[in-house]
């Protein structure tokens, strides 16, 4: 068993990147991602990590460098937040289409404007459809484990896709948690060397990122989407093996007191733990309530959600992002789609909350439960959602 030490989550994430023995780190500092790349630059400078640290002039270059590094067969890491993600957007899509297994930590922060440095999920939802594998971490330990898991999955021969680890800015990045490090042997056992299928090398020239005319473009897109859909089985087996090695077992969704629950909260990211405490208190009041935490965002775990929500009468979906002019938050929209053809569809109440780091505490989630129960009496329509706690609403 690895040593367990108290460490800021950002620093432990950087230590995990070091354990993954990456070859190239290209990043531009942006709050709240900064501590991760600062610590990585220190590790490289101090000779603790033998990698190229490239302090690029923008996030567009950070992702471009990562693409180039991955294309020559190097293990590439980058990390950003919010506006930085927006600036690298163009290349984010290209990395997925070129099947380059870059791993990126996204320290989730609001998209401006108004200008905000604080946490919500509006940044990642702006690239929901970028073709990367996307997971949400619920704790510092999950961040650490998922860096190693990230490369393991991304570089699998049948996957070869980039992967984003979402971690809530400040709420996770800036807190100190007990983190259990892996032993070097455990990493070696779990994470083999990166063996690219195609790589840029003068001895065997290939063209990557060529033009795709209308006659081939659709085939190229299906050839990109299919491995993403199919990657779920690799993801699940990589989690299983991770559990067998370090004793922590992960799954696409995590359930808490949900088996017999009439009402289920559904969350992404670090809100899961807070909601679990609200569930305990509501249960103490004799209320039948449980929780599903979504860890895997893309590929979306359709079957797992159908199974886990099958017996519930009501779903309370907590979104941290907005689909302006749409049906509420992205998570609720997907869940409505998942359950559309189910016989006993639950009523879905969607709350958008915690934007730009506004605190949402246990009492707030209990309030949401009671508001939701009031709403379901009126049978909410698909477009019904509520901005929780907004003055004047």
């Amino acid at each position, binding site marked *: 068993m690895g040593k367990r030490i108290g460490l800021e989550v950002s620093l432990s994430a950087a230590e995990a990147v070091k354990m993954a023995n990456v070859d190239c780190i290209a990043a531009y500092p942006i709050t709240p991602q900064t501590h991760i790349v600062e610590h990585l630059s220190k590790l490289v400078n101090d000779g603790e990590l033998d990698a190229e640290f490239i302090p690029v002039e923008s996030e567009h270059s950070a992702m471009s460098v990562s693409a180039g590094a991955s294309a020559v067969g190097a293990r590439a890491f980058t990390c950003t937040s919010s506006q930085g993600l927006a600036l690298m957007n163009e290349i984010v899509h290209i990395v997925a289409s070129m*099947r380059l297994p870059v791993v990126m930590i996204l320290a989730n922060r609001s998209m401006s404007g108004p200008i905000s440095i604080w946490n919500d999920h509006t940044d990642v939802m702006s690239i929901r459809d970028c073709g990367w594998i996307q997971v949400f971490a619920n704790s510092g330990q999950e961040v650490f484990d998922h860096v190693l898991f990230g490369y393991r999955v991304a570089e699998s021969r049948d996957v070869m896709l980039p992967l984003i680890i979402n971690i809530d800015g400040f709420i996770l990045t800036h807190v100190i948690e007990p983190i259990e490090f892996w032993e070097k042997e455990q990493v070696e056992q779990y994470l083999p060397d990166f063996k690219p299928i195609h790589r840029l090398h003068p001895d065997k020239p290939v*063209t990557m990122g060529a033009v795709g*005319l209308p006659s081939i473009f659709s085939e190229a897109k299906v050839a990109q989407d299919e491995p993403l859909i199919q990657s779920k089985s690799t993801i699940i087996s990589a989690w299983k093996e991770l559990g067998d090695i370090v004793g922590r077992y992960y799954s696409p969704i995590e359930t808490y007191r949900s088996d017999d629950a009439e009402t289920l909260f559904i969350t992404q990211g670090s809100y899961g733990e807070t909601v679990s405490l609200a569930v305990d208190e509501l249960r103490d009041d004799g209320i039948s309530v449980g929780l599903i935490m979504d860890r895997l965002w893309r590929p979306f775990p359709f079957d797992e959600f159908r199974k886990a929500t099958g017996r519930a009468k009501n779903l309370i979906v907590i979104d941290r992002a907005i689909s302006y002019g749409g049906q509420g938050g992205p998570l609720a929209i997907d869940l409505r789609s998942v359950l559309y053809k189910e016989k006993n569809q639950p009523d879905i109440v969607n709350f958008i909350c915690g934007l730009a780091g506004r605190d949402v505490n246990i009492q707030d989630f209990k309030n949401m439960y009671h508001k939701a129960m009031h709403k379901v009496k009126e049978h909410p329509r698909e477009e019904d959602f509520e901005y929780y706690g907004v003055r004047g609403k």
Partner: protein
Amino acid sequence: MGKTKTDLTWQELEVGAAIITPGNAVEYKSGDWRSIRPVVDKNKCIKCGTCYIFCPDAAIYETAEGFFEADLYYCKGCGICAQECPTQAIEMVEEEE
């Protein structure tokens, strides 16, 4: 992607739609883009090769007699050769069905 590749199924594409045959752009028929084509008046042509040098697609070749002609498999009909010809020996004429 080459002319022989347009009937590929999605399963047959290389990972990341990579092209693993170097130089296969030569298979691509860019002549399909053309709406006008260059016609050389051999009475005016002085065999200087200016068109050969300026052609952005390297689609012009030298014939055994030393004249220069466009390979219509590649020629996109851009008209640069006609523009640059010092003796106005090249005329761009409409392609007909």
